């Protein structure tokens, strides 16, 4: 097990390193940072002045090492747009996004797992068709539009929830439904096919012939095995939620990392953007690693 974790960890660290290089070069070489700060109509002299002022005239390798070694010392650079250290921005904004991510994954679990189980237990029934319909719909609805429609219905027409903001728990209800809905199709389909496979397996037939039936059979025998892949996909989805928070947070005006990302992009604030891209990638990798370890822990066959 330790060997397995070590192996995965090496891959994660090297991917993280590669991504730090890719993001840095994309945002500093493909895009000219001085030009981005100065704006489109800037004069050549102005751009040159900014280049010198921010040190963009030095070689890109030097700047990369400066940036990358800074990360380990807790120095993530200074935001041009906010005039603050990037790290304090991250600390300010992270709680909202973490709340949103956790709540939206809970919404996904609450909707997709019961529906998936019911659909698998009654294949081709009405409930199976409804579940499929929900999956098809949720896959095709644009996230931001669903958010606006939710606001329209549950905040303006029937004022149950606040329109936008992030002060109380109720502010997070609509956003997490919207963000959670986007992972419902994948998780529900996986739950359904996984459970269908397990139900037709030999050991379930054995259990059934030895007298287990109904919900006990499903919960004690079938579900345990069918949940394995679902758990790991949920971990990956949780990682995805951070990057996916951009749209939801800007629709509902939640001051989290996603909104910070959008504002930094619009303000051409490259230090913040590159840290955010890197941080979201690391979060994703972390949850992927967690999913792998969880799977290996639950299913010993994968450790080989």
């Amino acid at each position, binding site marked *: 097990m330790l060997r397995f974790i070590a192996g995965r960890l090496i*891959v994660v660290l*090297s*991917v993280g390193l*590669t*991504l730090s290089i*890719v*993001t840095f070069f*994309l*945002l500093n070489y*493909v*895009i000219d940072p001085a030009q*981005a700060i100065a704006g*489109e109509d800037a004069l050549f002299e102005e751009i040159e002045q900014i280049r010198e002022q921010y040190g963009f005239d030095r070689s890109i390798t030097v700047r990369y090492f400066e940036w990358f070694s800074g990360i380990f010392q807790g120095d993530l650079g200074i935001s041009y747009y906010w005039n603050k250290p990037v790290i304090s921005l991250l600390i300010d904004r992270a709680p909202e996004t973490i709340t949103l991510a956790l709540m939206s994954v809970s919404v996904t679990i609450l909707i997709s797992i019961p529906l998936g189980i019911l659909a698998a237990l009654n294949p081709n029934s009405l409930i199976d068709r409804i579940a499929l319909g929900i999956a*098809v*719909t949720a*896959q*095709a*609805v*644009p*996230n*931001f*539009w669903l958010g*606006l*429609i939710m*606001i*329209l219905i549950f905040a*303006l027409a029937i004022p149950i929830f606040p329109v936008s903001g992030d002060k109380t728990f109720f502010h997070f209800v609509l956003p997490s439904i919207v963000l959670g809905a986007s992972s419902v199709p994948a998780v529900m389909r996986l739950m359904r096919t996984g459970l269908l496979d397990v139900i037709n397996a030999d050991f379930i037939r054995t259990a059934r012939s030895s007298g287990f039936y109904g919900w006990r059979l499903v919960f004690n025998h079938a579900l345990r095995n069918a949940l394995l892949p679902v758990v790991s996909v949920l971990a990956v989805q949780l990682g995805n939620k*951070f*990057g*996916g928070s*951009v*749209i939801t947070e*800007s629709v509902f005006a939640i001051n989290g990392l996603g909104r910070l*990302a*959008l504002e930094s*992009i*619009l303000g*051409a604030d490259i230090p913040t*953007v590159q840290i*955010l*891209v890197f941080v*979201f*990638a690391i979060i*994703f*990798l972390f949850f*992927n690693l967690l999913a792998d370890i969880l799977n290996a822990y639950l299913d010993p066959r994968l450790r080989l």
Partner: protein
Amino acid sequence: MIFKTFIKRLFPRSFDNEIYNLTPKDLIIRKSSNHGGFKFGLSLLIIIFLFAIFGPIIFDVSPYEQDLTKRLLPPVWKEGGSWKYIFGTDGNGRDYFARILYGTRISLTIGFGAACVGMIIGVTLGVCAGYFGGWVDQVVSYLLTCQLALPGLLLAMTIVFLIGPSITVVIFVIGATHWAFFLVVSRSATQKIKNLDYVTAASAIGASKFQIIMRDIIPNTFSQIIVIFTLEVGIAILNEASLSFLGVGIQPPTPSWGLLIAEGKEAIFFQPWLIILPGIALFTLVVSINMMGDGLRDITDPNSKVSEE
């Protein structure tokens, strides 16, 4: 029904009772003519295509022309609406129906364009990884992990906005961040195909690796690639709409659906149709594409059953 008689006349053999004597082509046709979701998705998509191509020619109203005396007129089914402006007008007095109609073209162009870009990248990498194996496979898998870990939307937003938003840039950036599925599917398909007898036979008669890949492998992965392609078109369309909605994609005054929704957001309370209508258009297009994709997956799956009428 007309559809069925048409198919029947074209392919009389596909309606014999002996389904086991059918050629693969006939099988596909029979499966697709029996697949309700596929037929629905395909017909809807054809209608949308016809709208996109001929709509602006028949309905000859400019989506850009502003008339500030006719701002925010309601659509025809609301009180005060008129047939002159079927969907009403937007905040600048532009005809909303014309804007949505032109938006169809934008969405379709970007959806299919970006999926093509993604397909070229993904299939090239996937076929190479599957065929050569060894270190090539490892390098490609590594690239795949990197691609999956990068927050695609955020990166796309940054690059599109800072390079300068245009339709071409949006197509290439969305395509360049969406090739993972193509890679995974074409890689595993290639791994299965490369050990089949006809590939061995091809190399025995002296075909080069390039010839084998181009003539024997890629054409045979096609049925699986086309399924991914359809689903990716849907994803790309939603992505473009998100980018435009956030203000970092297609720029005004070009009528992209995402942008229309962003513009309508200001009037959400009094003119909700400004966000509802383009959203329904977006949803209909993506649903039709996804239903077609799901249908194609069932149809091209060799294990799926052929139902008898």
